């Protein structure tokens, strides 16, 4: 592998968990690997435009969410690949961990939201400050706050309904 490739791998490694969460939140299980590849490709292509004055985390979030919002699922490509192995690569075997099923319900609830709201919730859950979310999306900070308050209530209800089997 080339030195450029090794550099990119080092640069990408800390952002891999974020890309992994974004792929799970934006795509259903069979398409998650496809989306993860697209997100990585988007970061690889965008990296030459990275200016060190902005935080790498913010840059990675911006590129990944931009790519996720405009991503289209490729039915044909998915059929051509073996899905089982890829799903195994993406979902952690939680074993007896009680958090596992709740996490799955949370992801399922996030996936029911419209794409822009999905992105807002995801950034918020990842601990990105309101001001940064507002800048990333081109919204006002108060608008982000109001949307997120509503979205948190909605997510809580969705997860609860799912748990109650409604």
């Amino acid at each position, binding site marked *: *592998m080339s030195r450029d*490739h090794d550099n*990119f*791998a080092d640069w*990408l*490694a800390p952002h*891999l*968990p974020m890309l*992994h*969460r974004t792929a799970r939140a934006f795509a259903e299980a069979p398409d998650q690997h496809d989306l*993860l*590849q697209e997100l*990585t*490709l988007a970061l*690889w*292509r*965008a990296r*030459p*435009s990275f*200016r060190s004055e*902005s935080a790498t985390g913010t*840059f990675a979030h*911006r*590129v990944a*969410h*931009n790519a996720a*919002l*405009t991503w*289209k699922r490729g039915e044909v490509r998915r059929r051509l690949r073996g899905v089982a192995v890829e799903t195994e*690569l*993406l979902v*952690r075997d*939680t074993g007896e*961990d009680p*958090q*596992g099923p*709740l*996490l799955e319900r*949370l992801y399922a609830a996030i996936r029911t939201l*419209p*794409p*822009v*709201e999905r*992105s807002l919730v995801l950034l918020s*859950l990842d601990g990105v400050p309101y001001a940064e979310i507002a*800048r*990333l*999306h*081109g*919204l006002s900070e108060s608008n982000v706050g109001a949307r997120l308050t509503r979205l*948190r*209530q909605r*997510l*809580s*209800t969705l*997860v*609860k309904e799912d*748990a109650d089997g409604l």
Partner: protein
Amino acid sequence: MDFERLEQVWRSEANRPSEEQQARLMEELMTMLNARRRTEFLLAAIPFGAMSVFTVVAGVAAYRGDAFAHDWPGLAMLGVCWVVLIGVFWNGFRARRRPTGQPMRDTLESLLAQNQAARRNYMTFCALTPVFLFPLWMAVDHLKDDGRMSAAAGFQAMALCVFALAASYGWNTLRFYWVMKPEQRRLEHLLAEYE
């Protein structure tokens, strides 16, 4: 369900790929990137290779002294092809270096603007196709009248051009209805979420 509980779950270890999974994912993603890079290189090398062959052939003919006098329009067309090819690759290279600092809303708006431009190009193409056919028919007819082309050769030339235009028209029409229009609706829908 308490949202703080959901935030706890989000931050838990269950929401992180294990070290082993991360290593396997990284390896797999790097292999994919390598493959894509090879494909991109090949896709770039094919037109450059073909153009180089044509240029060498033209260069040899020009060196022998039988190209410039009679076939200078062909050499001019070759020059135009080189300019277009370099222009396309230069634009692609610049697009890769373009800062990606704009907000997502602006990215969606610029994608919609690109989509509108592509749809306008299709409309222009549709409008110009019949306009192009008329001078083509005139040129072939003129060649036949001058005795420089037989009626059969004229018919074949017209048939070939009409076939190429019809294929291009069909391909662009399919793209318009199956790619550009759904993409336009999708982007408008996404932008509406910001209202």
